[in-house]
Structures are given as structure tokens and as C-alpha cells.
């Protein structure tokens, strides 16, 4: 035992054992039925709904003392949500934490998949706000449940078609619906559609927890995850015209940062760990502020 009653006034990883058992049973069913949303008795957590209570409950139920935990919020290890949840598990479970993707055994994420490819020994836990991909099209749970039961996903395609009719292309850029293993249509949580291809055939187990909506679902490793599309409007991820301004990475998801009130802006890696590791390895972007070079770093000149 690593713990003493002095340092811990509650159970390991906060949740009581009965709650963990209930969540563990839901996780096993979720893995057995990829993409199906298993109802679970979500608990009140010491943080408000919308702050990742679903993901926290899933993480708390799988976490062990030997795990190394990484928490990201929109790709960043250093924003409020990530720091708070990492601190929560440091305090309640005493587990080691890290920001390095490859060191982590459990990664809890809000709306990104790390750029570093995941391995078979890792588990990715998503925080999910609205687990039902058709909720905004059909508010009645009884109806959407029937649609999943009958594999009646026409409504989802109508939504994507309306995008094309209105904008000329599928304008959905995040929470882009996927079909898991050819059966269930699933909301990948509000990750940018850029990350959808990373879900397909991933060697890591992916677990999704929605606290307020009380659902857990999963994508097992090596499972087919297909983004919905049309033959004449195939699925495509976002592309960026310029590389990361700090580490010069290409083919990664970039965040836009406004620099001034004259239209100046820069694009930087959304995955902060990936960006830091690249810079540590000597990669330099346009605005990385390398002291050995005297580049003009004051302007973000863009049309």
C-alpha cells in the first residue's frame, strides 16, 4: 500500500468501489458493442457538468497506481481543464502524471487526439458533451434509440446533404459523425474532423464518457471507424496553408492565434506537447523566436 489514511480521506481515485464496479461493467459492454452508447448511473463529481465529469469517471474507474496519466484540453496540457483534472488525480489517486504522449498509459482528452501515434498499451478517454450524434436532429431519446436499433441513419445523411446544398460542401468540421465497425453511427465528441482518421484502426483502446448525458461508449483497438460521406463528396480533413509558426510542423492540426488588431495572426500546433518536443529537437518555425536567428517576429503578415 502506498497510501496512508492521513493523506487520503477518500477512496483511491475518488469514486467509491461500487460506483467503479458499475462503470466497469458499462465499459466492458461498451467494448463488446463498439459504438453503442451504454447507459450508466453517472455520479455527481466535485466539478460541474461540462468540465469532463464523464471522462473523469471513466478514468477513475480504470486507473491503477502504476498508471501514468496525461490530460489534454483542446490539445493543450496547460489549460484550465487539463491542469485541474490532472491535479484532481494527482491528489485523489497519487498517480504519476506527464505531458509526454508516449509516456502516458491513460490519456484523458477533451476534443483532440494527440499527434504522436498512440500505442497498444495506451487508453484514450474522451470527455463527451452530447453523446448522441443525432440529438440536434431528433431530440427524443426514444426515437434516436429506435433509429440506432434499426440502423436507420438516413437523417444523418440528410443533415450532411443539407450542408452540401447550402454550402457546396460538407460544412461539419467537428463532431463529424462516424460509423463504427459498419454498425453504429457515433459522435466522436467535438474533436476536429482532422482527428477522425486517427480513430480508424487505432492500436489504442478508446473510451468515451458523457457525465451529464450518462452514457459510456467505446471503440476497441483495430476497429474500423469510417467518417460518413457521399461518393461525390468524399470525406476530407482540414488542410493548412502554412506550417506551425513555432515548430514548422506540417500535417498537424493548427490553432489560429490573433496577434494584433490589423489582421495579424499565426497558426500554431494545437498539440502543445508535440510542438514542444519538435522545438526541443531543433525544429524552428517562422515565429519561434530563435535567439540565434534574427527573423522578423513582430509581424504575422497574412492577407
Amino acid at each position: 500500500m502506498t497510501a496512508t489514511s492521513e493523506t487520503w480521506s477518500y477512496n483511491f481515485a475518488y469514486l467509491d468501489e461500487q460506483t467503479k464496479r458499475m462503470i466497469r461493467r458499462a465499459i466492458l459492454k461498451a467494448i463488446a458493442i463498439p459504438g453503442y452508447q451504454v447507459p450508466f448511473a453517472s455520479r455527481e463529481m466535485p466539478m460541474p457538468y461540462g468540465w469532463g465529469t464523464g471522462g473523469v469517471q471513466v478514468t477513475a474507474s480504470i486507473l491503477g497506481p502504476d498508471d501514468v496519466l496525461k490530460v489534454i484540453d483542446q490539445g493543450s496540457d496547460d489549460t484550465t481543464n487539463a491542469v485541474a483534472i490532472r491535479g484532481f488525480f494527482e491528489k485523489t489517486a497519487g498517480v504519476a502524471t506527464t505531458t509526454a504522449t508516449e509516456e502516458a498509459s491513460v490519456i484523458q482528452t477533451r476534443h483532440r487526439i494527440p499527434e504522436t501515434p498512440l500505442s497498444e498499451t495506451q487508453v484514450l478517454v474522451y470527455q463527451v458533451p452530447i453523446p448522441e450524434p443525432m440529438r440536434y436532429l431528433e431530440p427524443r431519446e426514444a426515437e434516436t434509440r429506435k433509429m440506432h436499433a434499426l440502423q436507420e441513419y438516413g437523417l444523418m445523411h440528410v443533415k450532411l446533404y443539407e450542408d452540401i446544398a447550402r454550402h457546396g460542401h460538407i460544412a461539419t468540421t467537428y463532431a463529424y459523425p462516424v460509423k463504427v465497425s459498419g454498425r453504429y453511427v457515433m459522435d466522436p465528441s467535438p474533436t476536429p474532423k482532422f482527428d477522425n482518421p486517427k480513430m480508424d484502426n487505432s492500436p489504442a483502446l478508446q473510451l468515451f464518457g458523457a457525465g451529464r448525458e450518462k452514457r459510456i461508449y467505446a471503440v476497441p483497438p483495430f476497429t474500423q471507424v469510417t467518417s460518413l460521406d457521399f461518393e461525390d463528396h468524399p470525406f476530407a480533413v482540414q488542410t493548412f496553408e502554412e506550417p506551425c509558426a513555432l515548430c514548422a510542423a506540417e500535417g498537424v492540426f493548427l490553432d489560429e492565434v490573433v496577434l494584433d488588431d490589423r489582421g495579424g495572426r499565426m497558426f500554431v500546433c494545437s498539440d502543445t506537447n508535440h510542438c514542444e518536443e519538435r522545438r526541443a529537437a531543433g525544429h524552428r518555425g517562422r515565429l519561434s523566436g530563435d535567439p540565434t536567428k534574427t527573423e522578423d517576429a513582430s509581424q504575422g503578415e497574412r492577407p
Partner: protein
Amino acid sequence: MAVAAIAPGFADPVFDAQKAFRTVMDAMAHPGRVHELQTALAPPAPLSPVAAAVLLTLADFETTLWLGETLTKTPAVADWLRFHTGTVLTEDPGEATFAAIADPMRLPPLGAFAQGTLDYPDRSTTLILQVETLDPSAGPTLEGPGIDGTARLLPAPLAETFWLEARRNADLFPRGVDFLLAAPGKIAALPRSTRIVEGD
């Protein structure tokens, strides 16, 4: 039966259960793959230590448990499970959250267990089958979610009709039962999502 006669459960309920769960979760996420599951449990025979560890990890007052014929013959098994988990024993396999079977040669027809519904396919039985060996180099070829390409698994002993029934079970997807196969010190899973493509 005197309370003093009941063998102990997990020495460390929190961490032993967590360890066992992660092993079971890994097994479920990688159908057919054989995982080590060491446990110090000494449950009353014929309940095996691995099957016992799975039940202590997952069963409680919210679940129902159906015991196979061989296990019901020894009342100490039910007493031990009731004492440690508080689970509700049922005689109707169609109502069971979990089913533990010590003699897989005498597995009832799978249709007798809860299959879940199309609306709620998760409301189905998880079967814990005690086997003697798990051989990943023999047996039928498996494919599906969790399997990189194909895998093989031959649990033994099993009734002759097992693979035929398991294939029908997979055809029911998303309904159907899930299997946890417990051999001494080892565990493997066969969820309903796994397709049994060839061999028997």
C-alpha cells in the same frame, strides 16, 4: 453454514479489483488474446480462482448471477459469492447479468441467457466459462473489432456445439452474450463482436 468457514476475498479490495478489471478490460478489447491473471484467492471448489476474481471485481447487489449445475452442487460457492459480493443469485439464466459455469461441457444453450434487445443490447449476460487451457495457436480463426488482422483461440474443454453456437451468437450482433474464458492464471475474452470465420 458457519460464517467462520467462509474463505477470504481480495486481500486488497481496491487494488486487486482494479488489477483484475484492467486485465479483463484488456482481454475484452483484444478478443482471443490470452492474458495473465494471477490471484491469491482460494474460493471454494469447483469455483476457480480466476473466475472468482472476475466475479469479485464485477458483481455486486446491482447484478444477478446464474451458477451452472456443477457450481450449485456445492452450497459453499454460493455462500462465498453472496458474502463477498452481495450479488443476487438467480435460477433463470435469461435474467442473469453474469453466469459462471465450471463445467463448460454442460453449458446450456446460449439462447437461454439474456440476449439484450435491439434497443438495449447491453442488457445481456456475460458468461464466465472455466476452462483448463487457452491455446492461442490453435482453434478457429477470429476477426473483428479489437483484432489486428486475425487471431486464433482454442479453449479446452468445450462442448462440440460451442463454436456453432458462438457463431450464431455473433450473427445476432448487436444482441448476444459475451464470454470470459477463465483458465488457471489466465483469461481471454470472446465478445459478441468477434466473428468466427473458419475452423472449428
